[in-house]
């Protein structure tokens, strides 16, 4: 009798545990799951209309062609998590891609052409980080300035000319690793490493703390200035990696990056669940959101809708995401 009486209790407890684990998972990854579901739904719907959508070739275009955006969005997500922002990253990628191409065509070994942009990206963003952290200039102002300097400087130096005659060995993004395109490998490995780092390291924790409540973070002994310089430096490295993937995907390097690249990158972070106010979000979300944009762009072509709609759809997604974030915050603070 007593056994019978106990059984339901035990079941409720384990049900409660499962429920609480489930809730924690949803709480931590709600936005990521939403984006993933959107990608899957989009694939199912478009494939029903046009089965060629799911062909390997098209998947390759969707994923590899946009991997550099996902890589840049990793660094951007980290910066936004600390409550800062960088609007100059598009221009920086343009500069770094040109640096890579110039080195490659000037006869330097390809590994130099691949590494130097990463170091240059790190250096430039370290300066930005120093201005934000120690001169206490808001990051939006510093990076708006950097945007103009980098973009103007690039056009003046290159005169708008394209770089061609790139050595074939330089074209990293066209190569494959165990049959998988390098950009895809880079995107997946970098995302997973960064996600693990942000979730489990003391460094990652301090970035979330700074974005969540800078005053409390400092009062808890977190060195805010140093962390901000570091996060911008890391973001610069990711921009360098992104620039190498971008520069090595075609036979030529344009001196102009895709328009509004920085906005696409910021948007990826935000739709992936990084709160624009700082303190929450993951880099897995930003990568998934990049894949979602690429899928939408490709899907519009496959169902014969003008690709110009892409920006409108993304705009709508931003508004929905930010609204959801605000509602979540309001509920949490009650």
């Amino acid at each position, binding site marked *: 009798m007593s056994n019978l009486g106990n059984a339901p209790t035990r079941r409720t407890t384990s049900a409660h545990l499962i429920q609480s684990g489930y809730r*924690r998972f949803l709480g931590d990854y709600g936005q990521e799951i939403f984006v993933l579901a959107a990608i899957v739904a989009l694939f199912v719907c478009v494939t029903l209309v046009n089965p060629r959508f799911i062909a390997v070739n098209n998947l390759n275009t969707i994923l590899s062609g946009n991997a550099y955006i996902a890589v840049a969005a990793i660094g951007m997500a980290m910066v936004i998590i600390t409550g800062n922002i960088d609007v100059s990253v598009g221009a920086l990628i343009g500069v770094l891609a040109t640096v890579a191409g110039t080195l490659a065509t000037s006869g330097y070994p390809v590994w130099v052409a691949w590494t130097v942009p990463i170091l240059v990206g790190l250096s430039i963003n370290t300066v930005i980080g120093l201005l934000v952290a120690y001169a206490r200039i808001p990051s939006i102002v510093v990076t708006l300035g950097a945007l103009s300097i980098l973009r103007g400087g690039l056009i003046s130096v290159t005169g708008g000319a394209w770089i061609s005659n790139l050595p074939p060995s330089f074209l990293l993004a066209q190569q494959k690793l165990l049959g998988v395109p390098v950009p895809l490998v880079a995107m997946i490995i970098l995302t997973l490493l960064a996600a693990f780092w942000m979730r489990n390291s003391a460094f990652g924790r301090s970035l979330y703390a700074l974005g969540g409540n800078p005053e409390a973070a*400092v*009062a808890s002994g977190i060195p805010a200035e140093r962390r901000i310089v570091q996060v911008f430096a890391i973001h610069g490295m990711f921009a360098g990696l992104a620039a190498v993937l971008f520069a090595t995907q075609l036979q030529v390097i344009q001196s102009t990056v895709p328009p509004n690249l920085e906005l696409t990158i910021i948007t990826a972070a935000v739709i992936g669940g990084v709160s624009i106010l700082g303190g929450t979000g993951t880099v897995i979300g930003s990568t998934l959101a990049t894949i979602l944009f690429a899928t939408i762009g490709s899907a519009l072509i496959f169902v014969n809708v003008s690709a110009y709609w892409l920006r409108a759809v993304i705009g709508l997604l931003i508004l929905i995401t930010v609204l959801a974030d605000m509602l979540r915050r309001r509920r949490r603070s009650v």
Partner: protein
Amino acid sequence: MQPIVQLNGLGKSFGGVKALKNVGLDIYPGEVHALMGENGAGKSTLIKILSGLYTPDEGTITVNGEAVTFSSTRDANAAGIATVYQELLLFPELTVAENIFLGNYPRRAGGMIDWPAVRAGSRKLLDELDTHDLDVDKKVANLSVAQRQRVEIAKALSKNAKVLIMDEPTASLVESDVQRLLDIVRQLRARGVGILYVSHRMPEIFAVCDRVTILRDGAYVATKNIDEVDEPALVSLMVGRSIDNLFPKVGVPIGKPVLEVAGLNHGNRVRDISFTVRQGEILGVAGLVGSGRTELALTLFGMTPATSGDIRVEGEAVAITSPSQARNLGIAYVPEDRGSQGLIKSMAIRKNVTLATLDKVSNGIFIRTPAEMSRAAEAIKRFSVRCRDADQPIGQLSGGNQQKVVIAKWLEIKPRVLILDEPTRGVDVGAKSEIHAIMGELAREGVAIIMISSELPEVLGMSDRVMVMAEGRVTEILERSDATPERVGAAMTAHRREENAA
């Protein structure tokens, strides 16, 4: 004579907590009526009801014999009730005249604002306050606090206020400005304005008020003519309970000095401070708002590093220039405003618990989640934090439980010195006594505790010694046996009184 305003049986609850119960009060024309009580006694709730910010759950407001209900501050203004708030609500980028008439600018035919009338009206109002030296075209941003306050009063009068509520009007004024303000209050009284005067400062109450109403724990205690009472009588009416029962003080052997401070300075709120705290000792810090209590804590904790003076921790001379350095020395600071400085609301409880000890729960790079989980579980158990689990975002907890987590965070560093700034403000009674019990336990473990509190009973009940501050200086350090409300109260205003006498 008929009172201008009469309050009867007012009651107001916030989420089940009764902030005000069955309170009555009346204000006559030409009367300065003091409203007194400890923090949390219900003064601000009463003021907010009278100025139309809150609607009472029960009770009536009568103005000139007519029952009224206020659904906004506009309604209260229309009934002739205006408020001068503690935090002055002026627009710094507008001029004095623009601020005074904001919201009810005189208009010309056609709806355009009549600027000459605005300026002339402002001039007249300020002149009536004997403030001939204040230019009506000056930007408010360029005025001193005292001048802004006069603009605020002129603004209230521009709405033909018959009753003026003044909330801690002298809290941020220097002595000479206090005298001038009291002159203005007397002048308004002579003109037949009724004034509800809220202040902690005894000398002002006796200098300017006619009657005084005392609240305690949201309830009405008494209304007295000012000549019927003296300072000790007022204090005992305000405190009104047996302090020793409420704060069970644990006797702990007191050890060697842990923190010794000599001649510490920072700005004009921390001036030449010297004191010592020993192992197992609770040093209470009392003082009025603006006496430099919190500033002292911030200086000790490295947020606003000292400009001169010596700090010794266990005999060793140290210079503290940042919170992380203070933490590494074993100094912990539980801030006054836990929302903005104590915790990160979006983060889980466990992450808040380990925030000050990330290096301890990590292997240098990665956080050891099992270690973090067990630290958090232990803290939740020790402090009986009421929560779902350690992964619940801390923002969802009640104020008292949030405060317990903030204290738990700092205990993780195994502090030698624990500075608690208003540890029980905004905390319900149950959690309050739990926090007091924890303080006793820590003292027994040999932690030196500095407790800053505006609640006199808390200071007197919990402290081994009481350090009283006024205007950035230490005015007295009293042993527990000597620390009576009267002596502490007198020391809190000591400086002021000397200056008055001089």
